[in-house]
């Protein structure tokens, strides 16, 4: 079973939002934001509350992992448009199966936040999502 970030990355690649580890265009990365390309989407695993267990041990627990998606672009509006593409591709996308686990749904946890301009004057927006996942 993969961390949520990996499965989210696959959704974004399939939806055409970006390409995994691309060195030009919109590159999608996991847990480390590279300095290049300037247009990047980086997914961070955030953890989540303790899984919900049932008394019946045969039933797999439900977990609620979460991620932050961080979009960096060369203009304020371009980066904002891309984070809206991310939301459109991910919000309420479930149920789906990935790496043997069943995701019942995926929720946007907060509104998009303009975080900052970095040292190269690139614009960074962030948004969080949390999933409801039935472990494999």
């Amino acid at each position, binding site marked *: 079973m993969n961390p949520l970030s990996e499965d989210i990355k696959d959704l974004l690649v399939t939806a055409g939002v970006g390409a995994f580890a691309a060195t030009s265009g919109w590159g999608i990365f996991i847990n480390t934001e590279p300095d290049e390309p300037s247009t990047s989407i980086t997914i961070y695993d955030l953890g989540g*509350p303790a899984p919900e267990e049932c008394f019946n041990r045969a039933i797999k627990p439900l977990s609620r992992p979460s991620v932050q998606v961080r979009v960096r672009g060369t203009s304020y509006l371009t980066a904002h448009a891309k984070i809206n593409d991310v939301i459109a591709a991910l919000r309420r996308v479930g149920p789906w199966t990935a790496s043997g686990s069943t995701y019942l749904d995926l929720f946007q946890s907060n509104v998009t936040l303009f975080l900052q301009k970095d040292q190269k004057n690139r614009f960074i927006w962030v948004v969080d999502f949390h999933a409801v996942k039935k472990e494999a």
Partner: protein
Amino acid sequence: MSGGVRVLGLEKVLSNLNKALTESKKTTKKGLIRAGFFIQRGSQQRCPVDTSNLKNSAYTAWGEGSASNPDFRTSGVSGKTVSPAEVAQMSANHEAEITKRKAAVQGKLAVYVGHSAAYALFVHEDMAANHPNGGEAKFLERTIQDNQAQIIRIAMETAKENIAK
């Protein structure tokens, strides 16, 4: 938010906590304040430290009072300096925010927990930042997320104390 703890921007993390506190019908103001202190302390332990001003801007506020230690400084462990004027501004912002939060929960069974530093939200959300002096992003959110059961227990224990008296 009645019968619960509210931190701006963390509604999803807090929804289960608020539900449990509201449904228990045993939540007291004293319990919520103690739970607020617990969250405030945890957040201070996890937040990144540079000048310590972010850590020292943490507060718990309720209708009738507040608790914080706004010891804002002009320099810190990293060697970074802040002007006296900026420190004065942080102190003024801190007082203004607490006054606003107290008014917002006046007469309600609710507390506010937060950090008054203007940059708190951006440090909280910046997952890519490097913190050489320790601490982490999502310091407040993770404190609540990792301690939901204990936060509820603290509120309930206070209710039990009141019954025993």
